[in-house]
C-alpha cells in the first residue's frame, strides 16, 4: 500500500476515533445529567423502608412498586393538580409578560435610543435588580399584596415573577437585538417602512428563536421558584415547589413522595422544551457565528 493510499485511511480512522470519543463523552455527560432523574425514578418505585438502601436496579436488586405513585394520586391528587395548574399559570403568564416587555425594552436598549451613558446606566440598573436577593423583597411584597387583596391569589405570583424576571428578559433580548444588523431595518425604512413597521416585520421574525429561548428561561425560573410561592400563597395559589417541599415531615424527608412529585413536576417543562427545542437551539446559538 502506498503512502498516498494510506493517508485517507488514517484520516478516516482518526475521524472515526474522534467521533467515538465524542459519542462516549456525550453518553457520559448525558448520564451525569440524567442521574438525578434516574435516582428520582428509582426512589419513587421503592417502598419507603428501602428508599435509603443501595439498590438501584429494579427487579434485580429490588421489587419495584407503584404504591408511592398510587398513594400520591389517591391522597395528594388535589395538591398536585393544584400545584401543576398554578405553576403553569404563573410560569406561562409571567414568561409572556417578561418576553413582551423585555422585547420592547431590549430593542430600545440595543438600538440605543438613549445616549450610550444612559443606556449603560439603565442596563446596570436592570442587572442590579437581577442580583437583588429575593428574600429582601418578600415581606414588602406580602404587605403590598395584602393591601391589594391578592395574597393567596395567583395574580400575586404572576406579578412577582414578572417583576423579578423582567431584568433578565430585557438583558437577554437586548443581546439578541444587538446581533441583528441595523442594515436590515435601514433597508426596510429606505423602502418606506416606519421604524415600528421595520421592527415588527423585519427584526422581530429574526429574533423569534431568541424570544422563545427567553420565554423558556423565564418560565423555568418561575416554575422552580419557591420563596415567593411559600410566602405569598396559603391554599389556593400554591405551586409545585411548595407541594414538593411539603414532603418533608417531622419524621424526616419522605424522599419517595418527593421523587414522585418531582417527576410529575418535570413533565410540563420537558414537554415545553421538546416542543420548542429547535427554537431554543437557534436562539441560544444566535450570534455565535458571525460572518
Amino acid at each position, binding site marked *: 500500500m502506498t503512502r498516498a493510499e494510506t493517508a485517507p485511511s488514517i484520516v478516516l480512522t482518526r475521524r472515526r476515533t474522534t467521533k467515538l470519543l465524542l459519542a462516549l463523552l456525550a453518553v457520559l455527560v448525558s448520564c451525569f445529567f440524567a442521574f438525578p432523574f434516574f435516582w428520582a425514578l428509582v426512589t419513587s418505585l421503592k417502598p419507603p*423502608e428501602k428508599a435509603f438502601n443501595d439498590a438501584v436496579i429494579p427487579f434485580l436488586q429490588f421489587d419495584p412498586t407503584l404504591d408511592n405513585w398510587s398513594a400520591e394520586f389517591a391522597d395528594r391528587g388535589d395538591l398536585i393538580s393544584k400545584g401543576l395548574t398554578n405553576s403553569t399559570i404563573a410560569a406561562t403568564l409571567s414568561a409572556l409578560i417578561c418576553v413582551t416587555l423585555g422585547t420592547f425594552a431590549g430593542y430600545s436598549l440595543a438600538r440605543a435610543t438613549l445616549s450610550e451613558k444612559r443606556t449603560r446606566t439603565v442596563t446596570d440598573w436592570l442587572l442590579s435588580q437581577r442580583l437583588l436577593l429575593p428574600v429582601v423583597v418578600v415581606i414588602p411584597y*406580602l404587605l403590598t399584596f*395584602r*393591601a391589594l387583596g391578592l*395574597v393567596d391569589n395567583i395574580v400575586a405570583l404572576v406579578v412577582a415573577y414578572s417583576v423579578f424576571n423582567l431584568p433578565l428578559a430585557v438583558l437577554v433580548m437586548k443581546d439578541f437585538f444587538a446581533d441583528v444588523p441595523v442594515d436590515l431595518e435601514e433597508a426596510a425604512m429606505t423602502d418606506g417602512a416606519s421604524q415600528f413597521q421595520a421592527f415588527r416585520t423585519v427584526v422581530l421574525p429574526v429574533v423569534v428563536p431568541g424570544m422563545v429561548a427567553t420565554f423558556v428561561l423565564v418560565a423555568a425560573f418561575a416554575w422552580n421558584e419557591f420563596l415567593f410561592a411559600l410566602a405569598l400563597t396559603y391554599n389556593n395559589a400554591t405551586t409545585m415547589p411548595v407541594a414538593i417541599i411539603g414532603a418533608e*415531615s*417531622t419524621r424526616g424527608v419522605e424522599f419517595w413522595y418527593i421523587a414522585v412529585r418531582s417527576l410529575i413536576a418535570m413533565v410540563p417543562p420537558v414537554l415545553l422544551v421538546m416542543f420548542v427545542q429547535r427554537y431554543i437551539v437557534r436562539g441560544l446559538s444566535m450570534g455565535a457565528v458571525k460572518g
Partner: protein
Amino acid sequence: MNVSLARIVVGAVVAISLVASGCGDDDDTQGADASVKPGELRKFDGETINIATLAAGPKGVISGVVYKHRDEWERKTGAKVEVSEIPFGDIQTKIMADLNTGVGNYDAMLAPAWGMGDYVAGDLVESVDQYAEQDGYPEVDVDSVLPAVENLLQWGGTQYAVPFDGDEFLLWYRKDILANAGFKRDFKAEYGYDLPNPPQTIDELIDAAAFFQGKQLPGSSQPGYGIAMSLKSGQGAAHFWYQAIAAPYSILPGDQVDEFHNVFWFDPETMEPLINQPGQVRGLEQLVELAREGGPRAQLSWDLGQSWEAFLSGRAVFTINTADIASGAQSSDAVKGNLGGAPIPGSLEVFNREREAWEKLDEPNVVGNLLGANWNGTVSKLSDNSEAAYSFLAFLAQKERMLDYAYDGADGVDPTSSYQFLKPDGAADVGAYEKAGWSAADAEAYSKAILDNLENVDTYLPYLRTRGTADMFETLDAAVTNTLAGRSPPQEALDGVAEQWTQLVEELGSDEFKEEYQTAIGYGKEPTGP
C-alpha cells in the same frame, strides 16, 4: 398607558378599601348564639376558618387528624375548615409572617409549642380561657392533662393553647436482646458488670451500645447497631439528642426553679447563657462518645425517619427517639412484642453551679423532657372567626378523639392526658390498644415510659419557648453537628453558641427577655414540668 395606570391605581384603592372594610367588620354576634342548647355545638353558619398546620396531607402525621375530623365538625356547626399546610421547616416563619404583617389569613394554628413566646410577646394569639366556661363549645378535659404538659399550654398562668399533642424523647430498646443469655454473659466478661436492662445512666448506655455495635443480632443478616439516632447536620433536630443527653449532667434538681436548680438554658438572674457550663459540655462529650462508639457513622447523616428505620428493621438495639416510634413498632416483625421503653438514662454526677463543683449522686439524676414539637392549637388575634376557630380546636381535643389518637399512634399525636394512659396509672384499657393492633406488652411499655418520663422524675429539662427560640436552636444545632463531625471540640463549639446567644438576648432586649424567660420556665415555682 395613562388609562392603564389609572385603572391600576383605582383598582388598588378599591382593593384596599375592600380589605379595610373587611377588617373593620366587627360582627361579633355572628357566632354568639346565646340560645344554644346544652350538649349541642354552637353554630357558625357561613363562616370559614383557615387552620395552619404541618404539610403532611390527609393521611399524614398531625394534619391527618385535622382532615379526618373536619367533616364532622363542619356538619355540626355549619362552618367550613380550610387547611393550610406548611412544610415543617418553614412553619414558624410562615405563621409569624402571617401574624406579624397583619395578613391574618390564619384563624388557628396547630403548630409547635416553641412558638409560644413569639405569639404571646407579640400579643398575637387569644387566651382560650374565655371559652372554657361558655356553652356551645366542645368540652375539653383540661383537668386530665398531665401537669408537665399543661405548662406548655400556658404562659404566665393564662391558657393560650388547646391541648393536642405531647412529644418527648425516650430510650427505646429491644427487651429480647437485653435478656439474651449469651449477650449477658459476654457483656459481663467484657465490662465487668451485668448488662443493664435497661441502662440507668448515660455511661451504662454508652457501654451497652458500644458492646452491641457491629454484633450480629438475632433475626438480622447484617451487623447490628448499638444505638440509632438522628444526628443529621442542617436538619435542625440533632440538638434534641444533645439536650436529652446533656440534661442529667447539668440540671440540678431542687424544690423550686431558681437560679441554680431546674434550669438549663440561661441563668434566670443574670441571663448569662449556661450552654457552655461544665455540665452542658460534658453532655456534648458524652453524645459524641455515644455516637462514635455505640452507633454507625452513618447516623451523622440520618434524619428521624432513618433512625426509625434502623431500629424498626431490627438492626439497632437502642434508639433515643420520639414516643410515636412505639406505634411504628407495631408493624415491625422484629420489634413488635419486644419493645422496651424508659426515660432517658440519668447520670451519677451533676454540675452544681452554686458550688462550682461536680456533685456525686447515689441515684441517677433522671430528667424528664418534652423534647419535640408538642403540636398545640392556638387562635390568632387577627381572626374574624376566632370563636369558630376555638370550637374546631376544642373539637379535635375532645376525649373521644384524643383516645383515638393515642390508640392509632401513627397520626403523630402522642398522649397528653391521664385517660390516654393505661390503668392503673391512667384510665385507658389495654384492650383498646390491642384492638388497634398493638401488642399488649408494647402498649404497657409505651404508656409506662411516657408516664415515667413526665411523672416519676425529680426534675425536668425546661422547654425553650421564648422569642428567638428558633434562632437559638439553629446555632445550637450547628455547634452540635460540627462537634459530632469532629470539626470543633465541645467546649469551643458551646462557647461559640454562648457568645451568639448573649448577642441575641441583647438584640431581643435583656430586661424584657429576662422577664419572658422567667415566665416561660416558671421561675420561683415548684417544677411540675418542662
